[in-house]
């Protein structure tokens, strides 16, 4: 088992190293001089040169790469010139709305997807099952930003139940801030419930006809217990994987949803960084988000070890 954990850890580090290299290449591939682009057309050549030196852009690419790795190894994600603050602090400042948005979205998605997926598999082929299949496909076709706008229209503008946008201002209480997340989390959650529903259904179908489920039934166990305790518990691994990966991918949905709802989160930060070519921020956000994805992946693999005694390598 230790060998397996070490192997996965090594695999994770290799992927992370490749991620770092890809991010380095993406930012350097930009046509033109990033320093000139960042400073805009009014900058003097001396200003541009000073920034080039400050960012290390005057060095040859391999040296820049080594410098970049060394910087990351120290936990330094660089410095945003526009925000005049370290990228890590900028990301941390914006982490709260994104974290809670993703958390609520995944909770909403799971609350919809798990019961519906289980029921759909249990009543396979029924009208309910067919409707679920169609509805999940529909949900997966809806752009989350569009659904966000529709929710704003109905629940914020017409009914006035929730705030239209924003995060409640700097002095807002925790509860007020969270109330600003209801609509965006619903938009994201509904859209991402589609994938989880499909996986739950498929993985329940895999186990519902297994011998141990039949045995449980033949012992006279109640249907609810059979489905939940015997079948669902065994179907949990693929479901857990997809829930975890959806959580990681939700960050990408958050990029767009935060813009719709003007939430001051990481997504919004990235979009504004792109619009003003703030390369250090783009670079830092890409790295952190990819790292979260890789870590969640690793975490899921480790969870397997804990919840399924059959997984022993």
């Amino acid at each position, binding site marked *: 088992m230790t060998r397996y954990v070490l192997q996965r850890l090594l695999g994770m580090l290799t*992927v992370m190293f*490749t991620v770092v290299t*890809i991010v380095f290449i993406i930012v350097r591939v930009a046509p033109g001089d990033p320093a000139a682009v960042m400073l805009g057309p009014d900058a003097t050549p001396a200003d541009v040169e000073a920034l080039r030196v400050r960012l290390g852009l005057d060095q040859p690419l391999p040296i820049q790469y080594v410098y970049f790795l060394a910087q990351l190894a120290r936990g330094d994600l660089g410095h945003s010139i526009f925000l005049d603050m370290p990228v890590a602090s900028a990301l941390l400042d914006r982490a709260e709305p994104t974290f809670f948005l993703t958390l609520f979205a995944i909770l909403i998605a799971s609350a919809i997807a798990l019961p519906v997926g289980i029921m759909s598999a249990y009543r396979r082929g029924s009208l309910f099952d067919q409707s679920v299949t169609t509805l999940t*496909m*529909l949900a997966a076709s809806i752009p989350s930003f569009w659904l966000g706008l529709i929710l704003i229209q109905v629940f914020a503008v017409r009914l006035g139940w929730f705030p239209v946008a924003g995060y409640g201002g700097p002095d807002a209480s925790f509860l007020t801030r969270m109330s600003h997340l209801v609509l965006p989390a619903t938009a994201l959650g509904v859209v991402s419930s589609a994938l989880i529903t499909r996986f739950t259904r498929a993985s329940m179908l895999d186990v519902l006809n297994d011998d141990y489920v039949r045995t449980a039934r033949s012992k006279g166990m109640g249907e609810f217990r059979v489905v939940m305790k015997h079948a669902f518990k065994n179907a949990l691994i693929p479901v857990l994987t997809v829930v975890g990966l959806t959580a990681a*991918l939700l960050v990408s949905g958050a990029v767009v949803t935060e813009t719709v709802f003007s939430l001051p989160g990481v997504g919004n930060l990235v979009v504004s960084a*792109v619009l003003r070519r703030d390369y250090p921020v783009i670079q830092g956000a890409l790295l952190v988000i990819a790292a979260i994805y890789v870590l969640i*992946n690793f975490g899921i693999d480790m969870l397997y070890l804990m919840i399924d005694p059959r997984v022993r390598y």
Partner: protein
Amino acid sequence: MAASSAGVDAPRISTLILQRRTLAIGLAVIATITLLAVLAPLIAPYAPNKLSIVNRLKPPSATWFFGTDEFGHDVFSRTIYAGQLSLVVGAAATALAGVVGITLGVVAGFFRKADGVVSRIIDAMMAFPDILLAIALVAALGPSLATVIIALGIVYAPRLARIVRASTLVIRELPYVEAARALGVPTWRIMTRHVLRNLVSPILVQATFIFAYAMLAEAGLSFLGVGVSPEIPTWGTMIASGRQYVGQADWVTIFPGLAIILTVLSLQLVGDGLRDLLDPRLRKDL
């Protein structure tokens, strides 16, 4: 391949018909949308950029089927014109992802030495959420129609590469490939003639889904203002410009949104239907 397994499914004729019906519906809808987009100059009652400030934000009516936007543009005309660009971006990004993904996948699956490097790159690329990677690439390459296509092509290539690699690994060990090798058939010929031909079904299915995702992602990029220029009508830019009139002129955002949903849904129906038709082993309900 498909023919040999067709008989196996005899007891499931009803399911098959139903699934083929979804394939038929999906194909019909996507064909209609494509036709509307192609024939937009003939069908659209107004030019997509025709300004008419006096008629701004008019609700849907017999004159303006989908209403008008803040500049008095006819939303119906713009929606069908926008379809042209949205479909072209989706198709071109899928084609690019296809070329890059298939090449990487076959090379990784066929040559063990290349596999390590290519697989690591695929894993790393898939660690980035698609729209975020696309945004970063567009930011690096500079926003334009071409860069949006390139960015989306790069973003979705690993998905195809992964599937192609896995299938190539299986096919390369099959007796007929071994026989071809023993007969001295050159590697490139084995790759194109024997390996790729057998990968047509999974590639086709995956490409349909990538088409759908690419269209969603393009809409997202345009909505954020980091994709094509906001003046160019795409479904994403239309929703972005109608955003500030939510609650006042909902039709400006609703109709382009419905166009995206309908297109992506029909592509998914086609993908699902194709998967069932071409490879019954992958059927979702088995």
